[in-house]
């Protein structure tokens, strides 16, 4: 299969994501520049981490108006698989492709360390290779990762089984310990931790590969 990795000015995990899905997962990938009006022939899209457009105004607020985001929106509406990691998650919520918002960490500090995540659902194209309740060790690196949504949205996420991961030991004040979520159609996901930084044995954990393997299963099966 072929992954598309979006490159915004200020993305800095694009090469990590590319490496994870090519070298570690063994699939094809291509970079897609932010002003591209189309995604080409990719099977799944990754919005990588970083500081798109300097994170000016709000994280992801300027990036959502990139020409490529129109293409990502159409791709998602047609059922294409879209993943946002860290800054990519922030862009997806700003774009309205995922509910809620990501605000300043409760402790006000940028937190850069490994966290443990509990897999809350395996009924998604992003977690079908995981075990129910599987604990993943992945790094986080963010200053604005506190997940916020109103009570109704949080209830909906729970009722519709759309929370992908919860933190074990909440590092940033996220409501409901939420680390990653799905859209209602279950083809768009966002998470603050970095699976692409934990896909090579050299990095101390390969738990992130579970997510890319899940996507591969989902695409091959389709």
């Amino acid at each position: 299969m072929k992954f598309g990795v979006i490159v915004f000015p200020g993305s800095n995990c694009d090469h990590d994501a590319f490496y994870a899905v090519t070298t570690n997962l063994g699939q094809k990938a291509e970079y897609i520049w932010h002003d591209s009006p189309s995604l080409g022939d990719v099977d799944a899209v990754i919005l990588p981490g970083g500081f798109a457009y300097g994170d000016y105004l709000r994280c992801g607020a300027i990036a959502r108006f990139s020409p490529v985001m129109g293409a990502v929106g159409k791709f998602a509406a047609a059922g294409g698989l879209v993943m946002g990691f860290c800054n990519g998650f922030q862009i997806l919520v700003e774009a309205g492709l995922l509910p809620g918002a990501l605000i300043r960490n409760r402790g006000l500090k940028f937190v850069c360390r490994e966290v443990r995540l509990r897999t809350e659902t395996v009924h998604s194209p992003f977690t079908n290779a995981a075990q129910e309740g599987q604990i993943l060790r992945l790094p986080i690196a963010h200053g604005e990762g506190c997940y916020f949504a109103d009570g109704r949205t949080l209830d909906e996420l729970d009722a519709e089984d759309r929370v992908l991961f919860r933190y074990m030991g909440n590092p940033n004040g996220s409501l409901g310990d939420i680390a990653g979520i799905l859209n209602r159609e279950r083809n768009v996901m966002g998470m603050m931790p970095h699976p692409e930084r934990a896909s090579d044995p050299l990095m101390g954990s390969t738990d992130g590969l579970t997510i890319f393997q899940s996507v591969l299963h989902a695409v091959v099966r389709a």
Partner: protein
Amino acid sequence: MKARVFVSYKSTVLDPQGQTVCAALRGLGHRTISDVRQGKVFDIAIADGVTREEAHKEIETIAHEILANPVIEEYRVEIVD
């Protein structure tokens, strides 16, 4: 003509920066301070020949769609001469 847009977190959203500022102010002896909410302000200059109504409409749109995120923030628009 100029516009000013104030953006701040909704009262239901935690504002840790405002809380930290509040705690610091109280620590400095300003005991009359009971709460601080931090926000942003945008000063926007508007080209000549635009009516007040047109300006207000456009700035409202900008504030709602770009300057504030309605999920977490509220805003107020002022047109100043």
